[in-house]
């Protein structure tokens, strides 16, 4: 066994490094391409570094690139996504917190069944609600607005956030709440004084999860928003698939990175919580 030990470990490391290259390659290619000139892209090799680093594609992607008929770059859509994501994350997280508190701490007859009923919202293919939702948003005058998208994301995100908070609060000892009730603390007092102060970690997990989900959403964006109100994912797709003029791959790549920056940033600063969110979202049901 010892004889093979070093060879074995070398192989393990080689395999892991190879995989790391596979995962990093697209990021490397995106970054380098975004700094190349079009001639450099055409003549050179995808894996080569830029002959001359230039940021022109970035400013074009941000301010001038065409996403369909409009040619104002990604900036407006970036702000659209911010305007959509922040309220949707905040509302769905807060709703999830109080819902999770009820289904874990204030169980009543049938509350488990209601919770299960809520969870179905995590599993349905959203295609099955798109047509009625489009009609309803039209009726409410919210079609093609950011407010409409916020509503949609809150409605379908709350099932997840409720699950997150429920799974967290279920681990809090019952005695804590029982003792508080004997002391005369009511529903809201217990929530604000006892549970909220210890909920920091789950808030972080939940916010990160919701932020990535909503920022990265494409389906709702493409169906319920158009033109000016589109989120950045839809704009990116339009930009890349605009067939007029010369194909500017460097601008495409810069735009893709711009669309990815917020979630990448979150991943870099709070990766631990990001993974925890993924795994917490994974043990649903």
């Amino acid at each position: 066994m010892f004889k093979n030990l070093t060879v074995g470990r070398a192989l393990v490391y080689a395999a892991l490094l190879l995989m790391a290259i596979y995962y990093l390659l697209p990021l490397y290619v995106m970054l380098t391409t975004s700094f190349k000139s079009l001639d450099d892209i055409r003549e050179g090799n995808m894996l080569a570094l830029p002959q001359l680093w230039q940021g022109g594609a970035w400013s074009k992607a941000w301010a001038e690139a065409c996403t369909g008929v409009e040619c104002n770059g990604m900036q407006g859509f970036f702000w659209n996504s911010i305007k959509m994501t922040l309220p949707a994350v905040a509302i769905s997280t807060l709703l999830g917190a109080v819902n999770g508190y009820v289904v874990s701490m204030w169980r009543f007859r049938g509350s488990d069944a209601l919770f299960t009923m809520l969870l179905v919202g995590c599993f349905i293919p959203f295609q099955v609600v798109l047509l009625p939702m489009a009609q309803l948003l039209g009726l409410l005058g919210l079609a093609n607005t950011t407010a409409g998208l916020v509503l949609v994301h809150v409605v379908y995100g709350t099932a997840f956030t409720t699950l997150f908070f429920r799974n967290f609060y279920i681990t809090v000892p019952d005695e804590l709440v029982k003792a508080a009730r004997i002391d005369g603390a009511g529903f809201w007092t217990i929530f604000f004084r006892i549970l909220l102060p210890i909920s920091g970690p789950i808030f972080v997990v939940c916010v990160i999860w919701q932020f990535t989900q909503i920022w990265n959403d494409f389906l709702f964006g493409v169906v319920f928003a158009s033109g000016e109100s589109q989120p950045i994912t839809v704009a990116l797709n339009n930009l890349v698939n605009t067939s007029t003029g010369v194909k500017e791959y460097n601008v495409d790549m810069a735009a893709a990175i711009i669309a990815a920056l917020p979630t990448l940033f979150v991943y870099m600063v709070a990766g631990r919580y990001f993974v925890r969110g993924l795994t917490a979202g994974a043990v649903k049901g």
Partner: protein
Amino acid sequence: MSGSSSQGSLHALADRWLPKLVLSPTLAASLIFVYGFIAWTGWLSFTESRLMPRYEWAGFVQYQALFENERWWTAAANLGIFGGLFILFCLLVGLLMAVLLDQKIRAEGALRTVYLYPMALSFVVTGTAWKWMLNPDMGLQKVVVDLGFTDFTFDWLVNPDMAIYTVVIAGVWQSSGFVMALFLAGLRGIDDSIIKAAQVDGASLPTIYRRILIPSLRPVFFSVLLILSHIAIKSFDLVMALTGGGPGNSSDVPAIFMYQFAFTRGQLGVGAASAMMMLITIVAVLVPLMYMETRSAKRV
């Protein structure tokens, strides 16, 4: 106590009703936006709705139209190919990486960060990146040709027979790191004493993994299968960004079929019928998996 008894009973009353009151908006939303909407779509699928919804019962005409539509069967077959390969490769790659990372690796944290970052990206970004890498004129094909292999072709992206496989490549890149994280968490949760006991018995490391550790990851397998099949059936953005369902309809999937018939082709009824088929597929896949998952979780 006696002085505040009326206040106390008010408290008690509030405590009895507040929880239900707090939960009720979400429940109402769920009733309308999930259950009501499913019923609504279901109803639409039994009408003759085309450009505008109509609400007269028309029987199974839309399902008949759907099943007679060749494009639907292409989409369904593609979902089978994509879903099957996507799940298989995510499982293999994820498990392999988890086992390798489990060998007390230096810089494990950095490697994990690298493996997992694609999960933070949207499928549209992933699709855009891979569309560029798989570009037959300037992407990986050119890299290999420049290395001197002048006959090398890698044109899957524009080859109708192969386009759906490029979706698998990009999908596995996006999701396998996440599978690795789940398996790694599972492996770390296994009691060390089991491994020690097996080592005392003279079992080699590969045998320990094959016979003891991997089998005990059974519940994790179910979770992973559950999530991956869910991602596969819903996949829309990745295909839209990577191939747009093309060339032609060759990499079409049900999610794209539904979107196009319902929203760009003015065929609400067919769109609704295809959405119902997607729902049925998800139920048919997820319910048995969840049942097995809860059973295996109880056993372990």
